[in-house]
């Protein structure tokens, strides 16, 4: 598998790879401009559909599956976790502003007090910790996976609204950005080589999604069945280029998610969708 993958990889073009270091907003507009010039006629909101946005046939199959998706049971399990009070009687909804609604699109956030990036999943774990419960592992599908699949759906439709204010926040953003553009692994690929330079190209029958729109629709259910959080997907892509992946919930991935999410500012959230 990997030999064939490498061949396909070598054939990928590398062009326009250098979006020069800039402010987050300049980054975002440069990404969006690059994609919109390359894919005229595709509305920005459609970028939430990732690789499916390029083909009417794929989109329509996606819609057929989403009309009654096979993973509803997982989302229900997430709702049960969400609704079940902690042992002290409190709930996630009480722990979060506005019952956790229209919140996921404002995460990750930079915490100046802690000088670190806080993701939405960390926020859920902090509710647990503050109420005397053990934190969930970030790569555990049966707990954090289904919980976030439900919790994020409470923000469906809101527009991504990530803020990078001040030098300390910018430093974390820059760290995430560097990881995105850094060539890694035995195959020597950066995220940007695929999800910026070669977005829209078909690699072994799979259309590579653009980086814009990737952070608004997680978790995904691959094959309609297998739950992947955003960090689990990062891990997967790093393994595919034979890099030693960072663990889900690591600071490296939190910073990557901060940068990566900013790119989707203005796009509508839609959690828990079908992916190949």
């Amino acid at each position, binding site marked *: 598998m990997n030999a064939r993958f490498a061949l396909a990889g070598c054939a990928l073009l590398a062009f326009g790879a250098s979006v020069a270091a800039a402010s987050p907003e300049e980054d975002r507009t440069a990404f969006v401009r690059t994609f919109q010039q390359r894919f005229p006629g595709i509305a920005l909101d459609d970028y939430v559909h990732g690789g499916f946005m390029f083909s009417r046939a794929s989109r329509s199959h996606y819609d057929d599956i989403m*009309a*009654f998706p*096979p*993973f*509803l*049971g997982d989302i*229900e399990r997430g709702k049960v976790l969400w609704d079940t009070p902690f042992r002290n009687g409190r709930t996630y909804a009480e722990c979060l502003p506005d019952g956790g609604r229209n919140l996921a699109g404002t995460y990750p956030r930079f915490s100046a007090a802690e000088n670190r990036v806080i993701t939405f999943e960390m926020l859920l774990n902090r509710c647990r910790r503050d109420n005397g419960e053990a934190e969930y592992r970030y790569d555990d599908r049966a707990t954090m996976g289904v919980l976030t699949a439900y919790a994020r759906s409470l923000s469906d439709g809101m527009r991504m609204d990530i803020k990078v204010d001040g030098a300390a926040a910018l430093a974390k953003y820059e760290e995430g950005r560097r990881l995105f553009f850094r060539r890694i692994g035995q195959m020597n690929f950066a995220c940007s080589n695929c999800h910026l330079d070669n977005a829209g190209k078909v690699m072994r029958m799979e259309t590579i999604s653009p980086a814009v729109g990737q952070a608004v629709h997680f978790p995904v259910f691959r094959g*309609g*069945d297998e739950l992947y959080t955003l960090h689990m997907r990062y891990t997967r892509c790093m393994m595919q280029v034979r890099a030693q992946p960072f663990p889900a919930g690591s600071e490296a991935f939190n910073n990557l998610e901060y940068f990566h999410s900013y790119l989707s500012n203005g796009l509508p959230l839609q959690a828990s969708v079908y992916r190949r």
Partner: protein
Amino acid sequence: MADTIKMRITLEGDTAFVKVLMPHPMETGLRTDPKTNELVPKHFIQHVVATHNGRPVLDAQWSQAVSKNPFLEFRVRGAKPGDKIGVAWEDNRGENNALEVAIK
């Protein structure tokens, strides 16, 4: 089976559009369990019946190649609010499950 059958019904005129999900692993018998390295035995829904007010309208036989957590859509004619749509399945191990829902 931890999950129940899920059913969504929309009434357009006197036709009930019924969508059903039946949580089930639908094992083909060809899959290797990554943990034990052994083949997972075939385990699949092989018979499904749909009813309208208790009267069967659809009788289906399936193979193991229906997708996991099977989806089924059918359309019942002559339906009105309050009517009951039922779905029942049985798998190759004799396990079964059923759900009946009133049209709103």
